């Protein structure tokens, strides 16, 4: 049962461009961007127990780095996107080295400050970034929507497979041990600061990767993508989908992004609704709405099969 679900999802995702075209395919591509962000953020928040508010900012770093490299240096898109991810990882390393020595909410505080500072600087440095108007970016693969979608899907699968691999390895065990009992883990000889830093840098790199991809799909990067509201969206997706499940968070991203398209009519209320959704989820089903629905569905299925 456990292995079937992701396989069915993957088959559906691969077949998606044959079922939907143009608009909904584009929506799906964008939701893959959010899926990468939400699943990497949920690994950090759910499995490592680190809450960073700079995930959207790291995506912005990836996007701007890649955009500027393509525009000014003429680098090919795949290379510049990778460099963008690397730069995001470097920023993650800097912030992590500064804050991860301490326990408590220092990471959350510093990343929130950093995220604001980043948004302010890219808005102010008009000469380089065109400020709040945004920077026009060349599209990837000549704007071919189907191939862009598959690129996004490949990046998403890469993210989930890599992060799941890390979580299932020795390092993953260390991370969970640290989350449950930090002093216990460190007396067993785990260098807790080091492994926290590794997890933070890794997830920051994936955020940067997602950002670079997004830039060349949408064709425009602007300070909008690093707003606090964007971070709220990523948080809502992860919490709704379940913080302790990478796939759940990704599904949460896809569902909420799909909802966003339906809710376009009352755009203004969208983030307020999602904010309320997070508050309700945290209060009533802190493990996430999707994991709970999954358990109910399984129970229902068992009962149904049992009677048949």
């Amino acid at each position, binding site marked *: 049962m456990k292995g079937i679900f992701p396989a069915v999802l993957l088959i559906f995702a691969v077949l998606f461009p044959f079922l939907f075209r143009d608009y909904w395919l584009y929506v799906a591509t964008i939701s893959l961007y959010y899926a990468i962000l939400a699943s990497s953020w949920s690994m950090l928040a759910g499995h490592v127990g680190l809450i960073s508010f700079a995930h959207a900012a790291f995506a912005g770093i990836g996007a701007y780095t890649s955009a500027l490299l393509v525009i000014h240096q003429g680098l090919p898109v795949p290379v510049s996107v990778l460099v963008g991810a690397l730069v995001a990882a470097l920023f993650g390393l800097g912030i992590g080295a500064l804050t991860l020595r301490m326990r408590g*909410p220092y990471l959350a505080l510093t990343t929130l400050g950093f995220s604001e500072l980043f948004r*302010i600087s890219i808005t102010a440095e008009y000469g380089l970034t065109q400020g709040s108007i945004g920077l026009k970016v060349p599209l990837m693969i000549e704007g071919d929507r189907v191939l862009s979608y598959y690129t996004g899907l490949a990046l998403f699968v890469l993210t989930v497979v890599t992060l799941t691999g890390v979580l299932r390895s020795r390092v993953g065990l260390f991370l969970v041990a640290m989350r449950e009992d930090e002093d216990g883990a460190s007396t067993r000889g785990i260098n807790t600061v080091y492994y926290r830093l590794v997890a933070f840098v890794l997830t920051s790199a994936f955020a940067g990767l997602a950002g670079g991809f997004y830039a060349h799909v949408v064709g425009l990067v602007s300070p909008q993508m690093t707003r606090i509201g964007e971070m709220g969206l990523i948080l809502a997706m992860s919490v709704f989908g379940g913080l302790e499940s990478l796939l759940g968070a990704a599904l949460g991203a896809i569902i909420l992004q799909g909802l966003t398209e339906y809710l376009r009519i009352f755009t203004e209320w969208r983030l307020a609704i999602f904010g309320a959704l997070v508050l309700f989820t945290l209060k009533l089903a802190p493990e996430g709405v999707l994991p709970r629905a999954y358990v109910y569905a399984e129970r229902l299925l068992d009962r149904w099969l049992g009677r048949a």
Partner: protein
Amino acid sequence: MLFLSQLANALVIGTLYALMSLGLSLIFGVLKLVNFAHGEALMVGGYLFYVLASLQLPLPLALLFSTPLLFLFGVLLERIFLRTPYQRKMARYDEYVILVTFALGIFLQNLAFPIFGPYNRQAPSLFNRTIRLGELIVGGDRMSGALVSFATIGILIFFLYRTSLGKGLRAVAQNPGAASIVGIKVLRMRSVAFGIGITLAGVAGALFGPIFLVNPEMGTSFAVKAFVIVVLGGMGSVKGTIFGAYGLAIVESFGSILLPDPTRSLAYKDAYGLLLLMLVLLVRPQGLFGEKERPA
């Protein structure tokens, strides 16, 4: 002259910063959590004052009426979102409170957008005339804001150190277990602390309203400043928070005349605080007046 006027400005703004940060510090001290919705509490206070003032209420009365509403709002939030997880010793409580307060902030901010629109609103100020002290000119809105903040901080300190309720709050901040043994109701103190914290932020928002403008996103930059101040001074320390507030105001005030380009220097005013934060984290992570964290 530039030096003097910048200094005067720093002192005025610093007093306002102290007011908003003391709320954050009090909440941290008693509830042991960082309220990531603090900026939005400030925004709510700003709008509340704006609405009450546009009902033609006399301004001092508007300010006075907004305080019990803000306190009630804070107590309500604590009861709904923070009490049960604390009581039931929820697993991974630390992450939960960060998520829930941040989500609350996002919710309030985006509730304000459709209700009030994205525009800047200017709330009327308590006192309009500019004040001249020799060559020094201070805006009446700033001056009255600073004076009201100063008085509020005075009342708060008196309350915390001289009344039994205030002593109860400080006892819970120091040691909740011991406090409950001597008969202090820890849960009630937590509600009260959150209510007072939100009220302080809201009053600061009302006083900021005439000086900076009121808009749904005003909270974020002030919240970041309050975080910087509280980390700078040492989390949970009243003295440290006040020093931190003036420290940040001075750094911002003099930092902004360092860059020649005026639009840039205005944009990067917020950056100085962050640089200060990074410096503190590097050199003295427990803050100027904080106690060093002891591993269990």
